[in-house]
């Protein structure tokens, strides 16, 4: 049986490990050089930093995953630095690109572990040099040992806000401010539910406490006004919870409001998507064991709905076991299913503590830039609801009329905020305005004379 696994983050590693343990040697494809996913990305060869410095509380988990990764690499058909840019579910083929060369991988079953990316809400000035997503800021630290600036402000919401601010401060950067758009009361209300995941909850409290005791400026329930500067970032200003305008000088800003699934391959595989109200994300349809409505296609990890690294490892194992079950193998899954269900309940509480700030996108002024690739303002999008053509009732016509999502990112960056802006203008729910249709290639690929 030909099995392919796409992705070598926490979900992919555990999926491959499970397949190998049952005698299946999969083709294992990852875009990065060395696997690990975004969360456990390793520094390039020659850079010596210990796991404790790189991954903090997650050091033992990272070390264990890297050990499993390295062991599995040696036994699987490992193909690093390879992009899967298309999937053909009818033909059961993956189209790949590696070192500018096209390839085709045939499969009988495939497990997609494609991970997540930062979810961004535009803020006035967010395209100034010096503004980076939260995940990008963290990767700079983890894989290159450098920060995004000397004096850095962090703006957003979610666990990553506190973690990255903490990591920057620990690494010696000056943290100018940590600006959380979620009010303290919202997080407090979700606290009882978060006790379902006491370790994660405790870590979050630790980061916040550490930042406070080190005198770092913290503001919760803020409304961002602008990232300021002429050529590059010079400061950030916001309105505090009491409605007072505040400002701080900085030379870099990390922004991010949680994550969104990188689910383009699931989309191209023909898996239907549903809007998850709790995550406030479009997610490909799958059951708790990673099975999808498309025969032979399984999903695991953040690419199938945000669950975090711990869930991703378990889900990777579970999806591989589903594949084995569907092959008629007898495998034991009860304990794993129980653990996944428990973590799913914790996730709901976490999402409630850090809800997506749709109101920030909705209240953006018409002259704010929201689409970097095409240089479009919020006003350019809003006007699609009135003209010059038949008004846009959903995202794809808004794209057709405005060019939103027609650039290099194909809406991966601007799509979430664009949907909020359009929904608010139309007076309907964000689920009703739909999502941008996915098309190959998943990421840009070059035109070549000889494939």
């Amino acid at each position, binding site marked *: 049986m030909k099995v392919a696994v796409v992705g070598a983050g926490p979900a992919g590693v555990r999926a491959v490990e499970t397949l190998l343990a049952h005698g299946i040697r999969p083709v294992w494809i990852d875009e990065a050089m060395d696997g690990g996913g975004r969360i456990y990305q390793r520094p390039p060869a020659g850079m010596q930093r210990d796991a404790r410095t790189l991954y903090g509380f997650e050091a033992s988990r990272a070390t264990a995953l890297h050990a499993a990764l390295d062991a599995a690499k040696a036994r699987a058909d490992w193909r690093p630095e390879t992009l899967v840019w298309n999937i053909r579910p009818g033909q059961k083929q993956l189209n790949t690109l590696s070192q500018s060369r096209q390839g085709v991988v045939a499969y009988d079953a495939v497990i997609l572990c494609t991970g997540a990316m930062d979810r961004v809400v535009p803020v006035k000035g967010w395209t100034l040099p010096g503004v980076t997503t939260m995940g990008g800021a963290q990767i700079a630290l983890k894989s290159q040992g450098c920060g995004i600036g000397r004096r850095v402000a962090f703006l957003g919401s979610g666990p990553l806000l506190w973690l990255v601010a903490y990591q920057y401060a620990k690494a010696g950067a000056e943290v100018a401010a940590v600006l959380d758009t979620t009010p303290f009361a919202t997080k407090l209300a979700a606290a009882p539910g978060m006790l379902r995941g006491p370790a994660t909850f405790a870590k979050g409290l630790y980061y916040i406490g550490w930042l406070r005791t080190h005198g770092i400026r913290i503001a919760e329930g803020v409304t961002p006004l602008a990232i300021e500067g002429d050529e590059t970032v010079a400061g950030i200003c916001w309105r505090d919870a009491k409605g007072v305008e505040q400002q701080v000088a900085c030379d870099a800003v990390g922004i991010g409001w949680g994550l969104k699934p990188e689910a383009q391959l699931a989309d191209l595989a023909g898996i239907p998507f549903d809007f998850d109200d709790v995550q406030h994300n479009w997610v490909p349809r799958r059951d708790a064991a990673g099975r999808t409505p498309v025969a032979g296609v399984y999903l695991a990890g953040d690419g199938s709905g945000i669950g975090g690294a711990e869930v991703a490892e378990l889900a990777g194992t579970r999806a591989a076991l589903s594949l084995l079950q569907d092959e008629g193998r007898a495998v034991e899954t009860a304990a794993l299913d129980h653990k996944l269900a428990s973590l799913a309940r914790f996730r709901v509480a976490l999402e409630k503590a850090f809800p997506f700030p749709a109101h920030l996108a909705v209240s953006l002024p018409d002259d704010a830039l929201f689409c970097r690739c095409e240089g479009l303002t919020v006003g350019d999008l809003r006007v699609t609801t009135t003209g*010059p053509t038949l008004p846009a009732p959903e995202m794809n*016509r808004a794209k057709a009329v405005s060019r939103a999502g027609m650039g290099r990112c194909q809406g991966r960056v601007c799509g979430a905020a664009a949907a909020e802006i359009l929904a608010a203008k139309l007076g309907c729910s964000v689920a009703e305005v739909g999502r941008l249709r996915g098309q190959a290639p998943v990421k840009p690929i070059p035109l070549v004379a000889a*494939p």
Partner: protein
Amino acid sequence: MSGTRCDVLIIGAGGAGCSAALHLALRGSRVVLLERGLVGGQASGVNYGGVRQQGRNPAELPIARKSREIWGRMKALAGTEAEFTVTGHLKLARNDAEEAELIAYLDVAKQYGLPLRMVGRNALHGEYPWLGPKVLAGSFAPEDGSANPRLMAPALARAARDAGAAIHERTEVMSYAHDGALFHLRTVRGEEFSAPVLLNLAGFWGGRVAEAFGEAVPVKPLSPNMLVTEPMRYFIEPNLGVVGGNVYLRQIPRGNVIIGGGYGESNPGEPGEMPWSRPVPEATMEAARLAIALVPELEGAQIIRSWSGIDGQMPDRIPVIGPSSTTPGLFHAFGFSGHGFQLGPAIGAIMSELVLDGRTDVPLEAFRITRFAEAG
């Protein structure tokens, strides 16, 4: 009879359907346009965007000429020109046989009053220094150009609505009947519409409407494979094609290059199902290879998206246009075989003439629906 009663019912909100709704509404007809998906969702909205007359089947040229005239006043008609730009269309030959074909078409163009000039072997690379060495000769149609297919049908639909037409999107017709005087349509949600005139402008699915009225035709789905690059230096001004049509490309001032060639895959679906279409990677790669042979500078440009859609293709590669042979008050225009984007605006005008004047100046004999039965 309950439901909505109007003068003209139109099935299919592509370019032709939206143009027909507009032209009829402007002349005072009460029009209802019914669309299964969204306006311009299939062939009209996702095609290459060529506004090309050169190379058309001679039977189509009178319609193409009429349509070109409408394209020229699109802004006044529809409120936006839908990025229609007169760049000229340069059709290229890559060998002697292709060159001979270009030369032969000069006579056809002359006969129909289409401006067209040969760019011979000596002049070609001087005028277009970015063309690759394998290109031998070209013919240039200065009145041709391109437009944005994503904008055209929604713009015409907007104008039609402003002129009084009712446009119902996401409204699939599930049953068709004719009682001798009126057509009665019932939608998937149970709404009922009736009118003495029905226009079948439903693209590939027009074959199903025709079949419902006892005149089935051999229409097949056609799914051209399209791709677009990231923006690059703007240097390809004319819309480019080749003899044989295995690749075509154009660049917009924004810098993106749109390349078509080969075919994707698709399933038009059964009634009540959503159709799907998708590009085929091998076709994308082959189109890239052929495009680089025309314009070597394209090598290395990044493809950011590929796509396809569904048009209807007839065996003789020209559409069905004209009155039904079975049912008075029914008119067809479908199966445009990949030519509908340029022709669409005129098709709407012609439909309005057939309905309101009982005649049109454009010869339609070649497009009659009975031609397939006659051929046996």
